[in-house]
């Protein structure tokens, strides 16, 4: 009923992904990555993953609508 739930999921995760990606890029080399995530820039990497997930969800919504 209502609208396709994949749309808000896709939008939210794409936004999260972009936020984390952007923040990760802006804070590259920061000491906090050494202190927390074992030196890995998790913001950057996980931001990419979230963005991809969000875009996949949105793509699925588009495909559904075409049917």
């Amino acid at each position: 009923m209502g609208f396709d739930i994949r749309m808000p999921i896709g939008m939210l995760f794409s936004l999260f992904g972009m936020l984390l990606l952007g923040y990760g890029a802006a804070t590259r080399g920061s000491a906090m990555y050494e202190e927390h995530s074992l030196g890995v820039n998790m913001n950057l990497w996980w931001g990419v993953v979230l963005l991809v997930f969000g875009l996949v969800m949105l793509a699925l919504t588009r495909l559904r609508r075409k049917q």
Partner: protein
Amino acid sequence: MVWFAVQLVIRTNELLKGIHVRPEPHLIDYAIILLYFAFVLGIGFVLKKYMKTSTDFFLSGRSIPAWIAGLAFLSANLGAQEVIGMGASGAKYGISTSHFYWIGAVPAMLFVGVFMMPFYYGSRARSVPEYLKLRFDEKTRGFNAISFAVMTVFSSGVSMYAMGKLLQLLLGWNFTAAILISALIVLAYTFLGGLTSAIYNEVLQFFLIVMGFIPLVYLGLRDVGGWDGLKVRIANDSMVHSWKYMGHSSANPMGVEWFGMLMGLAFVLSFGYWCTDFLVVQRAMAADSMTAARRTPVIAAFPKMVFPFLVILPGMIAGVATSSKMHDASAKESVVASTAAQSSFFTGGKGIIPPKYDPAGKPVTANGKVVLDYDLATPMMLVRYFPSGLLGLGLCALIASFMSGMAGNTTAFNTVWTYDIYQSYINKTASDQHYLWMGRASTIFGLAISLMAAFVAKEFNNILDVLQLVFAFVNAPLFATFMLGMFWKRSTGHGAFWGLLGGTVAAATHYGLTLPAGAVPGVKGGYLGPILHVYPSEMAQNFWTAIFAWVGCFTLTVVISLLTAARPEQELKGLVYSLTAKPEEGGLKWYQKPATLALIVLVLLAGLNVVFW
């Protein structure tokens, strides 16, 4: 009042001093959380216009696709207690905690989907108590409806309390503000969009929890050297095997042997919950067809099998993790020596788990050993491994898990209140629009009661324990009633009602006559006077209480049913196994058949149990 407030401030201050590694959420973290709140509210607003009838509001018009209903089924059950509690359990007992999932949830989920949904869905009952009314009689429905309504609204309160306490401890957020804000958000979206809103948000919350915890497990495992590295650091074989030490209760940290666990947990408690609790069954009832309804719990079982890795592992890692600064310092020593010797973040703590602090700020001890605050295991993992940014996501996942549980309780309550209490006993002949209005009204007062319960829990901590106890007594016999109702046509209303009552009393009696080792009579049991048996652990006592309750209910129901008049068979068509046509599965592909999917889950489940034997 003033004294309380002063105590609160002092206590909080001491607790805050104890946590040396206060996370400092940055703007980015708040941005993430606020964005999430905006979406959750937005979904509620958009769905408002689709809520035209009471069926729309309480049952989503029975139009939800199986995969959505399935994820909501899983997510509604996930609450504060699960994410935090399983982490705590993992830190305390190790991988045996997985039993709560692999034995204590999945088989019951498969059973309710394949065997019980045909009656729940086919009877067109609008709630679980309504099924009892159709199958048995009014008094059985009343007993179930009232006990469930009270239970669910108080459970919500307990959940709120847990969340408020955690956010206050971890981030210094004001307890009242934290729970009021989340309650208001949940209120807004369930008020506007009803069950559909709750379901959509539950799916959102599911993905958020998964996406928030995967990086935690990844980083944690990478830090300790993978599963093998974890095993070495824990240095306690019974924490890394789930079955090997189940032969005798003294061999494993949980203090349970396999039989008590199998019967108590696997059978009585888990089936009692997953097969009869309206909070989850409601999501399956909202599905768009009979096969979708049957597939819903089975679909939920797939991610459920995997959740131990997301919620239990962080707890296990927390007990042996170190801070990055210590990591460098001890890199030269052997891993085992360094984790044993160092005192971690907190004096008296274990890994990154802090001890419980008394009002003076000193670690609490019992029997000479420091009492650890295991509930902080998972939150401390977030603090330890997540930089700002990701921290926002992790906190969001935590808050989401609390809110999905709250919303589940709220929608279950407003439905049972409106249909099973209000419509059945107070106002039988109002218009549908009136019931829709009542649904919205009960959403408000349901949440209000939960809020009050949260505040009461804060002041009187023992109330929590008493409440949980009462709920356990009421839940334990339920499955016997439903099983006999659905699979034995001879069971009658009188049998069901007295069986339920008797089972509850049996539970209270067994609990009142036994004690777990090292406990004093009171909330832990033994309140009836003579102690007939001492169990090696609380868990063992709980499992056996459940077994007694179930057996009591079963026996009483059978005996009284045989002594009372049977119902004519044509009235029971569609309500009992032997009088209902088998569900039509002709046109379905293999992956759409509930039984086939269930079989796949069982095979995977067996595999998991073997791997972690």
